[in-house]
Structure formats: structure tokens, C-alpha cells
């Protein structure tokens, strides 16, 4: 319990900045919708006839941008990448910080096992992810409603945010596992975020060429695509896959971190 409270206290400033950032991102994004809406529907229909790869290069992809929900769907990938960056950094920071800041000797001279310390840290991280998701959900619902003139988009938003939660879990565990395995904690955050950047760019590469579709399992952003979620809901296969990835990575964090020599 002490560990959880300690970590929450250490991260509260970060939570605050990230929350404000997300509110600003969603608010300014939806404000653009207001401007876009006035350009009219005909361009939108014309664009929809383009081949997929051309649409992607032009930065429009299959959403009905005249509705608030469609426009929000377009924003989703950027909300997702920010959430993923946040989750990765939290995950790696929680595990890496003791060694990086040379406080691991202090922490583990206390009557606490390594497994218990990790549990506390991961739980604190989980609480932070939940706060992040709640802030994002609430501000999304509010902002979309504010600019929306048609049917309510709340159902779509809640589904997307559920998808976001899975993404957060995956990248949180990626961050934790990298820091758990890595011995040089200065590089943990960079390695974990490189994995993230790689999957992010891979997402666009896959979209560009249909033949690369088999690579989609390598990029979690592909698991929870706004377009698919809005039309078909969440895919149970990907939800299970995400949970498996998360469990495996968290387990390997415990396994390696409990066994290895901590650098002091």
C-alpha cells in the first residue's frame, strides 16, 4: 500500500499535465470539425471514391467527416498514440526509476519483496491509466456533444474508449517488461518507446498496401481501429489477444525483475 501511495504521489504532476493535454487535444480537434463541416458534403463524397492508399496519403480514410462521430473517429488514432505514449512511459518509469535514480538499494533494504514492490508499482500505474482513460472519455463525450448537431455519438465513443483501454494495457505492459528485462535503466524508456513508434509507423505501412495485411498482428493500433469499431464493435479476438499479450508481458516483468541483479 505504501508503494502505491508513494508512486501516485510521485506521478500526480504528470497525471495533471497529461490530462490537460488530452482535454486540449480533443477540444482543439473537435473545434476543427466545426470549421470543416462548413466545407460541405460534396468533397467528402468525392474523396470517398478514391482508392484506399490514395485516401490514406491525403489524410482522409473512410470516415464520414460530416458527422461529429466520423470526425471523432479520424481523431481517434491520435488520441490512441498519445495514450500509448503515456502508458509506455508510465510502465517503464514505474519499474526503471529505482535503479535509474539509484534508490533500489534503499527500497529493497526495506522489509518488502521484489514481487510485492512490483505489484504496488503496477497497481499504481493501473490507477493512473484508469484516470487517463476517464479524463479522455469524459472530455470526448463533452466535446463531441458540444459540436454535434446530429445523432448522439456517445455509444461509439464508449466503444472506442474501451478499445483505448486495451491499447493502454498492452503498451503499459510493454513498458514494464522492457524495464524489467533491461539492465541499463537509462535506456529502458527509449527502447520501449521505440517499440511503440515502430508499431505506429507499421500501422500506416499496412494501410498503404493490402498485401501487408498479415503484419497486422504486430501493430496493436490495427487491433482497435476506429473505423472497424464504429461499424462492427470491438472484435473479441483482438480483446483476448490483447489480454494475452498483457498477461505474458507482466508475467515476464515479475519473472525477470525478481531474479536479476539490480544495478546499484
Amino acid at each position: 500500500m505504501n508503494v502505491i501511495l508513494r508512486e501516485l504521489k510521485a506521478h500526480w504532476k504528470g497525471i495533471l499535465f497529461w490530462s490537460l493535454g488530452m482535454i486540449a487535444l480533443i477540444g482543439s480537434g473537435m473545434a476543427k470539425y466545426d470549421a470543416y463541416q462548413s466545407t460541405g458534403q460534396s468533397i467528402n463524397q468525392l474523396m470517398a471514391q478514391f482508392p484506399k492508399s490514395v485516401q490514406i496519403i491525403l489524410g482522409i480514410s473512410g470516415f464520414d467527416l460530416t458527422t461529429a462521430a466520423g470526425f471523432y473517429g479520424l481523431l481517434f488514432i491520435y488520441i490512441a498514440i498519445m495514450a500509448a505514449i503515456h502508458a509506455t512511459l508510465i510502465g517503464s518509469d514505474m519499474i526503471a526509476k529505482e535503479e535509474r535514480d539509484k534508490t533500489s538499494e534503499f527500497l529493497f533494504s526495506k522489509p518488502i519483496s521484489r514481487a510485492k514492490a512490483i505489484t504496488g508499482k503496477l497497481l499504481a500505474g493501473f490507477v493512473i491509466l484508469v484516470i487517463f482513460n476517464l479524463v479522455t472519455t469524459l472530455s470526448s463525450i463533452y466535446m463531441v456533444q458540444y459540436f454535434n448537431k446530429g445523432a448522439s455519438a456517445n455509444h461509439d465513443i464508449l466503444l472506442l474508449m474501451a478499445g483505448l483501454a486495451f491499447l493502454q494495457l498492452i503498451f503499459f505492459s510493454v513498458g514494464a517488461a522492457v524495464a524489467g528485462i533491461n539492465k541499463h535503466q537509462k535506456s529502458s524508456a527509449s527502447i520501449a518507446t521505440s517499440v511503440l513508434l515502430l508499431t505506429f509507423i507499421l500501422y500506416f505501412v499496412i494501410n498503404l498496401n493490402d498485401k501487408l495485411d498479415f503484419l497486422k498482428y504486430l501493430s496493436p493500433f490495427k487491433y482497435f481501429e476506429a473505423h472497424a469499431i464504429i461499424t462492427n464493435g470491438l472484435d473479441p479476438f483482438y480483446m483476448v489477444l490483447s489480454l494475452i499479450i498483457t498477461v505474458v508481458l507482466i508475467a515476464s516483468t515479475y519473472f525477470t525483475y525478481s531474479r536479476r541483479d539490480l544495478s546499484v
Partner: protein
Amino acid sequence: MNIFWREIKAYRKSTIIWVLVLSAITIVFLLLYPGFTKDVEATRKMLSGIPAAYRNALGLSLDNFFTIFGFLGYLFTFVLLAGAAQAMSLGTGIISKEDSGKTSDFLLSKPVTRTKVLTSKLSAALVLLAATNIFFSLASYGVARVVSTANFSAKTFFLISATLFLVQLFFWALGALFAVIIPKIKSVISVTLPTVFAFFIVSTIGAFIGNDNVRLVTPFKFYDYQYIIAHNTYEWKYVIIEAVCIAVAIVASFIIYLKKDVRAAS
């Protein structure tokens, strides 16, 4: 000169990795170019049925957009993103590491002024970025030559690839400024990555609604590829805006760094 070489050596390995990453991004995308040209034919046919005035309103110029340069302009979105992350991490890290590594008092007890410390560090970062760009440009030029079916102008190509360096310069200066302003940077990447992505998202959201004002706030949009392809030069207005931003950031970094209370390790 000692500090300069010390930093070059310290960052040599990570710079090589960055060159490989940037080149890999370019190569992977360029390999998809032949497939993309097929879609282009279909689009071209479709677009030719639309009145030219309407096309222009959409901002689509048939000649420029669907050449290899048009494609290059797209893939550079990601090259610039990764390059910006490199430049800002370098600019921030090269300064903040003395603080986080608790080596500031060791460094500043040497007979060098703070001005010299900062000058050496920033110029080391600059040289590393320049080296990154030279190797990256040559590698991607080679691949572009191989995949492109038509001949293309080397000048336009290098004008486009040099935008990487220009964007990196902006983030190098911003990184330096952040390093002297933010107290206690424990993890460089958790400062730089959100910043870079914030600029990136502003630029992409601005791009698909065609808002020109957004170009003034985000370096990712300072250099418009359509313009470079059509006119074979940069829009000098934005070069000047960038130069002013960089000058302000660097001068401010020096002023703050010279006066600030550097934390001693204890």
C-alpha cells in the same frame, strides 16, 4: 574541444542507430511505391473527369501529387516525426544528462566557462545531426533511384530530404531550451516525445482540414512539399520564421544556463 569530442563519442552509437532507423522508414515506404502507382492510375482517370477548377479547390495537382516526390512528401511525415524525436532528445539529453547523471559539479569545476560548455555541447549535437542527414540523404537517394520508374531531379530530391535537417534544427533548439528551463529531468524521452507528438498531431489535424494558419505554429508544416516540387525552392517566409524561433530559443538557453543555479550532486 574536449567536451565536444567527449559528446561526439558518447552519442556515436545512438546516432548510427538513428541513421539506420530513418533510412529503414524511407526504404520500407519506398518499396511500396510501385504498388501505389497502380492506385494512382485509377485515381488519375477518375480525377480527369472532374473540372479543373474543382480540382484546384481540393488542392490536388495531378502532375505533382502522384509522382515519386508526392509519395516522398507523404513518407516524410514519418521521417520528420522520428527525426524530430532524435533531434529533441539529443538537444535535451546532451544538456540535462549532467544534472541527471550528477556530474554537473565535476564538469563545472573544470577550468571552462559555462558558455564554452554549452557551446561545445550544442555544436556536438549539431554535428551529429548533420552527419545523420548526410548519411540518410545518400541512402534514401539510392533507394529512390532504384524504385522510381521515371527519371527525377536530384535537386528536388535533396531539397525535400534537407527538410529533415531544417525540422531537426528547430527541435534541437527547442530541446536545449527545455533542458535549461525544466528543473530535474529524470527521463529525457518523457519530456521530448510528448512535445514532438503534440506538434505532429497539430500538423496532421491541420492538414486534412486544409487550414493554413496551422503552418505558422508547427515546424512539421513549415516546408510544403507541393510547393517545393512545383517551384524547386523553399518558401522563404517559413525559413525566416524558423530561423527566428531557433535564434530566440538558443539565445534564451544561453542566458538561462549562464545564470541558473546548477544543482550539485550530494
